[in-house]
């Protein structure tokens, strides 16, 4: 597919995680690759920003992974400067009364932690973990692989024949599990509200779905399935999320990728219905037979001129892809390390879930549905400065994902409401660490509208589009676009808007790269 007159075989739009990984894999396959990035720095949603002088923090995404071990091996990021300040980060379900539950993936440890709350839950844990593991095993190939197309769905069901047990079909018990709501599953297994709250929170995090919505148990199984081939779990790079991007950038360049910053795409170029490159805002035309976009599908296909080449029904379906964000990011610079009730400071390096139960999640969702946010929001926090001293010399930074925050408010503007949201977040934090709000030196609040601008993704959705069964697999971002290919020959997608959605996993990019190479063979 190479053309002697072209400087690149492939142009990748966007130097975020997926863009850089895809570019690197294609370069490793001996393609001449150029990445064009609109901003002055690579990273997209994965950057480290300065909150206030002396305090740096991951701007949006604050944990990386779970990354596929094979993918990590091929990227060789450690050779390009990646150092992890923490890995295999555990989750702690935080209780305002200090009776926290640590969920570290070890069955015995978790059962012991649960026994403090409920002997019955301690006994039930292994059963629940087994059900989740079984479901994850059976959908792993579907989660990790290239989804099937519509024809495969018609022939082999929603999962295109990719979700199977050893017997070759999806187990009835698993089918029933993934069809249920996570609340329904947890209510049947456990009695401790704190445990159920944390597990439900993890399932629906980033999705505009309440825990009692049907199909949310699938999301829990998906997370587990993504975790399947990782050896390091959730990790924190030394220097924050931006350090990960920095290593990716070096790996890409090391593989021969040319990265062009401050190069915003104005529109795609076409030649007789086939993509032929991109034109930048500067007017510069860059030609390549293949263009892979890590931007969201709506921007790529509806705003860069490709919509003229899309089948009409597909364009309609893509219009209906739900991309409005529902998560806010709060970054705090702290004068010191706050004390959390009932927890050893050494455990503050873990991932802390502040959600007392499913009811609190439901209340937060109810407020979200009304175009507002809960006065008592649920959140996930990390305090990366506890293990990464490069972020804040002698002091600390806290990073929070605050859940069920609408992009647009039913009344009022975000300019004024951000202070209120910050006050609510402070109120919740005070329940767990009474002195914390008084230690705040500076705060950033990024609502979905800000995330839209910062990450360059329409809607500002954490996962590049809502996570639900009707927006995954062959339906992500729309039927006919699920295999990273588009109806425009030579144009591909590799961003979070593709299967299996967001999270810093690299699966989208890995799959897209394989599809690009396979398409070249077909051509």
């Amino acid at each position, binding site marked *: 597919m190479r053309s002697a007159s072209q400087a690149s075989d492939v142009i990748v739009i966007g130097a975020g995680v997926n863009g850089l990984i895809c570019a690197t894999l294609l370069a490793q396959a001996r393609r001449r690759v150029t990445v064009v990035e609109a901003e002055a720095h690579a990273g997209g949603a994965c950057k480290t920003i300065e909150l206030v002088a002396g305090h740096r923090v991951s701007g949006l995404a604050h944990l990386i992974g779970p990354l596929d071990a094979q993918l990590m091996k091929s990227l060789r990021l450690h050779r390009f400067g990646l150092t992890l300040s923490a890995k295999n980060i555990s989750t702690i379900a935080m209780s305002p009364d200090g009776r926290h539950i640590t969920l570290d993936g070890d069955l015995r440890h978790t059962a012991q932690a649960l026994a403090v709350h409920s002997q019955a839950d301690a006994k039930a844990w292994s059963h629940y973990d087994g059900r989740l593991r079984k479901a994850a095993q059976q959908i792993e190939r579907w989660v990790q692989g290239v989804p099937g197309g519509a024809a495969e769905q018609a022939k082999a069901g929603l999962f295109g024949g990719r979700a199977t047990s050893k017997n070759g079909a999806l187990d009835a018990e698993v089918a029933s599990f993934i069809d249920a709501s996570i609340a329904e599953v947890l209510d049947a297994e456990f009695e401790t509200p704190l445990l159920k709250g944390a597990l439900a929170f993890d399932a629906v995090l980033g999705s505009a779905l309440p825990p009692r919505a049907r199909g949310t148990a699938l999301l829990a199984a998906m997370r587990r399935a993504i975790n399947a081939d990782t050896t390091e779990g959730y990790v924190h790079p030394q220097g924050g999320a931006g350090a990960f991007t920095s290593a990716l950038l070096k790996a890409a360049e090391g593989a021969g990728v040319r990265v062009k910053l401050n190069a915003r795409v104005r529109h795609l170029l076409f030649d007789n*219905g086939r993509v032929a490159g991109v034109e930048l805002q500067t007017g510069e035309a860059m030609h390549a037979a293949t263009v892979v976009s890590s931007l969201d599908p709506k921007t790529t296909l*509806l705003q860069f*001129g*490709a*919509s*003229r*080449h*899309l*089948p*009409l*029904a*597909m*364009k*309609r379906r893509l*219009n209906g892809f739900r991309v409005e964000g529902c998560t806010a990011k709060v970054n705090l610079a702290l004068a010191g390390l706050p004390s959390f009730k009932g927890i050893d400071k050494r455990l503050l390096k873990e991932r802390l879930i502040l959600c007392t139960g499913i009811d609190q999640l439901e209340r937060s969702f109810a407020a979200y549905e009304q175009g507002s946010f809960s006065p008592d929001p649920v959140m996930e926090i990390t305090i990366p400065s506890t293990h990464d001293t490069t972020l804040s010399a002698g002091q600390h930074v806290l990073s929070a994902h605050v859940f069920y925050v609408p992009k647009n408010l039913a009344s009022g503007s975000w300019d004024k409401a951000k202070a209120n949201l910050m006050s609510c977040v402070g109120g919740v934090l005070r329940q767990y660490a009474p002195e914390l709000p008084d230690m705040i030196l500076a705060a950033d609040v990024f609502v979905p509208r800000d995330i839209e601008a910062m990450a360059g993704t329409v809607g500002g959705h954490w996962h590049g589009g809502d996570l639900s069964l009707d927006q995954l697999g062959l339906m992500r971002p729309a039927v*006919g676009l699920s295999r990273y290919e588009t*109806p425009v020959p030579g144009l591909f997608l590799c961003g979070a808007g593709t299967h299996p959605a967001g999270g810093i996993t690299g699966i989208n990019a890995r799959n897209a790269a394989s599809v690009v190479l396979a398409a070249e063979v077909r051509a």
Partner: protein
Amino acid sequence: MSDFSSRASLATPLHARTAELCATNHWTEEEGFTVPAVYSSLREEQEALVTRVGMSDLSARQCWLVEGPDAGIYLSWLSITDVTRLEAGQTARTLWCDDAGFVRGEGVIVRFAAASFEVRTAVRDFAWIADGARGFDVKVTNGTGTRAAIGVRGPLTAALAAASGLTGDGTGGGQSARAAWRPAQVALMRDASGDGLELWTGADDGIVVWDRLWKAGAGLGVAAVGAEALEALRVESAIARAGVDWLPAQLARGSSDLRLPGDLGVGPDLTRRFNGVTALTGHQQAGRPVLVHLSADEPIGVGAVTVRNATVGTITSSCWSEGRGAAFALGWLEADAVKPGIKVTALAKSGTVQAEIVRAVFS
């Protein structure tokens, strides 16, 4: 066309006149608009269409305006016809496909000016054309109900046009002239049969145009013709109707309802890029059902068609022609069963009737 129901229907811009003329007070509903089913008697109206000239209210037709620099490019992507080649004032009868290459609609595209087109169709599907315009520099407006459309049909059509002063090039085939027919602006085009005329004007001018034609036609024996007589003439003339003889893809109840352009006698240029062309290229054309015109000595019912007790197809519409004293029908038959002159068995009011295959409609 459907039976008149009690739900709210819209009045066409010609309603004041059609109501005056509708002696039977027998109405029907077409695409949400109330139009006369029969004005005086079906027999008289059929006779007028065959021997003199008839006028009818066609204002229920959908009318979509597409304007802007990309109007021609967009409509050439939407439909199977490259309408950028039309000159201002020209029309193209065309159809459009869904993404899978099956026919979704049919109609006429009129080019008014370089960046101004109008789509006229009997199929209600405005959202399809409006949503599909995203990414093109066009404005799509639903003008349905803002136009009055008058059909003129019968052997004295040309005489009526001449008598009323409508003798411009608009009466020529394939042309849509804008006649400065003071005080009204009128656009003329040939109808689907090729024998009649359609006059399109603004809603406010509809009555003026109707009255002028009516007055000019007095000496020619003009008659107001309702939906039932038009429908009978359509079937007699073997003109397929969307929603009756074939279902637009979005309304199909199963794959057997889906129609390819070739099924409707249209062979698009598959080297040109338009919506659905990729899928269309992959469809098998051989062995597809064939639309046939049938006739019989007694009324033919809609339903299954058999040959030696084996079902070979379906009748989709039928009529009784008073003028010719025969029944006519349209129906889809298996390709192997289509042999002009042979008899098939169709349903009748009581029992069955032997109908003869006159011809394949799109042979």
